[in-house]
């Protein structure tokens, strides 16, 4: 929650474009009102992540590079198409994380990175599996490795804490109280 609220405060102040008492105060009020009116009472809210600023920066930089590379690749596929470049394939990749946030960030990043696009996220008993659409020839093993590498980078930026995988998922899917053995932020 803290992460989210701070993010929101940053967004609010950024929108007004000036860091001053009025903007921060109104932002706090705004966020308080939002929490009251739209409480995230989903059990998911209890999932916490520890954010590592350095990891975030590293992830962001890498993401930007990936975006540039992928744009280049698509451009080549468009401008100078050949059989390899316009070949498509669908892979299923099982992630190791149990955090939906991590899974989502990974999935979104995949969409922005070279040659790949997440077409589905499947929740399995063991975690999340991504179905990825690849543009251009790819070798399955290294392809999976790339994605798991991406996941590691995301986890390094925001580490899920404290909640066993199955409990969280059970909580999400069946809306029951998850075991209280972790700290909630």
């Amino acid at each position, binding site marked *: 929650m803290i992460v989210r609220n701070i993010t929101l405060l940053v967004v609010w102040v950024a*929108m007004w474009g000036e860091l001053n008492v009025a903007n921060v105060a109104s932002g706090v009020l705004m966020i308080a009102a939002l929490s009251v009116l739209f409480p995230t009472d989903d059990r998911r809210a209890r999932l916490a992540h520890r954010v590592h600023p350095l990891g975030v920066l590293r992830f962001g930089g890498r993401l930007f590079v990936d*975006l540039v590379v992928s744009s280049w690749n698509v451009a080549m596929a468009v401008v100078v198409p050949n059989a390899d470049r*316009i070949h498509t394939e669908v892979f299923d990749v099982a992630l190791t994380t149990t955090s939906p946030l991590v899974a989502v960030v990974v999935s979104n990043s995949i969409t922005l990175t070279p040659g790949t*696009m997440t*077409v*589905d996220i499947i929740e399995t008993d063991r975690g999340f599996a991504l179905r990825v*659409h690849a*543009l251009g020839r790819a070798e399955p093993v290294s392809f999976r490795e790339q994605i798991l590498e991406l996941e590691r980078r995301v986890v390094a930026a925001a580490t899920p804490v404290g909640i066993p995988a199955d409990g969280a998922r059970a909580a999400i899917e069946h809306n029951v109280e998850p075991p209280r053995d972790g700290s909630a932020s």
Partner: protein
Amino acid sequence: MSTVVDIATAALFLIGAALAVIAGVGLHRLGDTRSRMHAATKPATLGVLCCAVGAALQSDSSALVTKLLLAMALQLVTAPVGAHMLARSITRRDEQHPPTTS
């Protein structure tokens, strides 16, 4: 200084616009809907970012800059969501009704 900034802006604008054109061409050149989504997502997003940065370089108020940064961040978050959902529905549909022709 301002010349450098101007040149940078010009370059970013041209790159951004060119990316948009490439994305547009990609919508036609690529073989199937999901491939075309690659074009619509990646170069287009980058194009938006380029243009936003270009505009930020030209702006003289911090307020505008933060707003542009915000716009960029939001673009990075929302663009893949839309693309993903579309791709997902197309994938699921194709799995349920395998295309018979073409």
